[in-house]
């Protein structure tokens, strides 16, 4: 009975679409031309939304905003794999996910303008509101998955968080519970390399984030997070596995936060410009465009139409968002409990 190996693990990595727009046909997910175009248009819409939000913030028409620039493939690729009845528990940087799920874009602008009403999630969107405390949404996703399993609903729960989120106790407690009860949950980690000014190498000493899943008895895989096909494929398979009763999966999408952490941040204080330039060439939208061009799915004309269509819809959303009346201050008492307390009613009167 000497020293011996009693367990072994391998972390798998999937890349499909490279920067030149060439795809590994053997891995390419089955997507119709229409679906590929839809993906492309969602990527474009998300980026235009993001750009507009940044502009509005600069003009003082929005509050602090967290840009998704560079992470579009991770968000759209994963969200596009969801089925209508699946549920999503996002963090605060998932605008591309909300948009893909059909969340009214004007409500997203409204939310970032500092108006609660933007998070009154429409009943036909199975998403939870933005979660500000990092990582704390993870146990909620796990609980929803437990409830869905109990109710025998044939759905899966997708939970989003960042590299920084993996350091939180709630990440650990949540994923451990998901593993124990083999819950229909898919944990989608956008490793965008930064948690404000903390690089992922200082966030954890583990070389991949995917390997953290092995602590919980389920698989973790890494994908190129700027490769919309790899993200889509990995998520699609994980969701199917979850619904088959195969338990949870952890997907690390390796991507990059191209912008500042939020508009309140100045990333020049802590990260080198070169790093950003390296990632520019890995742009998720550019490579899909090149792929589509080779497939004959992309033309100048198509781009012009897409840009135009997108601009119009975003313009419309901004108008709608800014057309809403100022929220009623008394509403702050309306949603604390189902029925306001005596003291709240008194405070309401003194208002």
């Amino acid at each position: 009975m000497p020293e011996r190996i009693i367990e072994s693990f391998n972390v798998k990595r999937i890349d499909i679409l490279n920067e030149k727009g060439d795809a590994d046909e053997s891995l390419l997910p089955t997507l119709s031309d229409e679906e590929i175009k839809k993906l492309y248009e969602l990527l474009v819409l998300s980026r235009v939304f993001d750009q507009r939000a940044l502009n509005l913030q600069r003009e003082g028409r929005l509050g602090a905003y967290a840009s998704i620039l560079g992470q579009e493939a991770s968000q759209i690729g994963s969200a596009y794999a969801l089925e209508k009845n699946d549920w999503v528990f996002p963090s605060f940087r998932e605008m591309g996910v909300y948009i893909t799920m059909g969340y009214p874009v004007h409500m997203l602008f409204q939310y970032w303008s500092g108006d609660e009403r933007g998070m009154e999630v429409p009943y036909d969107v199975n998403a939870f509101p933005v979660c500000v405390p990092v990582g704390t949404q993870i146990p909620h996703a796990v609980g929803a998955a437990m409830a869905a399993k109990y109710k025998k609903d044939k759905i899966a729960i997708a939970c989003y968080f960042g590299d920084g989120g993996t350091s939180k106790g709630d990440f650990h407690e949540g994923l451990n519970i998901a593993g124990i009860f083999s819950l229909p949950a898919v944990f989608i980690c956008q490793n965008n390399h930064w948690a404000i000014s903390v690089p992922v190498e200082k966030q954890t000493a583990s070389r991949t984030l995917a390997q953290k899943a092995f602590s919980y008895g389920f698989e973790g895989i890494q994908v190129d997070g700027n490769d919309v096909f790899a993200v889509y494929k990995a998520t699609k398979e994980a969701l199917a596995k979850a619904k088959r009763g195969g338990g949870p999966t952890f997907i690390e999408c390796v991507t990059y936060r191209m912008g500042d952490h939020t508009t309140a941040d100045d990333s020049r204080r802590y990260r080198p410009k070169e790093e950003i330039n390296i990632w520019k060439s890995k742009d998720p939208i550019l490579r899909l465009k090149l792929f589509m061009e080779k497939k004959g799915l992309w033309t100048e004309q198509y781009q012009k139409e897409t840009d135009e269509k997108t601009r119009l819809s975003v313009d419309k959303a901004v108008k709608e968002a800014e057309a809403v009346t100022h929220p009623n201050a008394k509403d702050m008492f309306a949603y604390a409990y189902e029925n306001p307390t005596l003291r709240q009613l008194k405070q309401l009167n003194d208002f």
Partner: protein
Amino acid sequence: MPIMNMVQAINLALKQEMQRDDNVVILGEDVGKDGGVFRITEGLYEQFGHERIIDTPLAESGIVGTAIGMAVYGLKPVAEIQFMGFIYPAIDQIYSHAARIRSRSRGRFTCPLVIRTPYGAGIKAPELHSESSEAIFCHMTGIKVIVPSSPYNAKGLLISAIRDPDPVIFLESTRLYRLIKEEVPENEYTIPIGKANIVQDGEKVTVIAWGSMVYKCLQALEGLDAEIIDLLTLNPFDIETVIQSAKKTGRVVIVHEAPKTGGFGAELAATIAEDAILYLKAPLIRVTGYDAVVPFPKLEDYYIPSANRIRNAVEEVLKY
């Protein structure tokens, strides 16, 4: 009517709510086969199975966070935290989420969740098994806090808590669990949340307490012309009953087990000083646990407010 102690009454309430509503599930540490360290869930695992009586790993934030996810998905989870001293890691989930999900989503999502936990000193338990930190949760808008004082009101209030659409923290006095037996109706019944109970009528002084302190007060003040209010719900508390009685007697003593500074007695005193001050004849005295860490078993009896201290305080205010 059957005679029950608080453990049996709570167990019955859980059982009946689970029979009545498939969405009611219980989760926590050792709630399954073991029936919980105080045997509150005894027999439920055998009756309802592992899908509804869920033994969790040792992770309080995870327990409450998971329960929140279940609640927003449509279940009515009853989470057990093994001792109040172990609820602290779950405060983030309670404060940041359970209390805010309704307002954050403007009512689109609600969090019908009950968190049961044993509280209080006096059973010679180890460190952090004697906490009485109810005040912390009474400062959280969006949370309700209930502290039953008898088998009868424990059953009725727990059923109300489970049916309540908002998150409720349900504090059970470890000292009371098996101390008192009384008649408890077999059938299910509710007791309104937010209503106090006058357990002894009186004209000369108002004494306000909750949980195990109610009994200390009854012992201490037998025969005195003191009105004893059992608060039952701390958040939102029954302002009217408290103010009415304070105006009537003009003398108020507040009793709780938690340390004095920042305890919930402060809120009661402040409310009275704001709404009934012109009626007061004497200082508003608080008889409480000391500003100290609850001592180990050998000293805990010196820490918990004694019948003596309560009586002295009442006699003190009666001098005015």
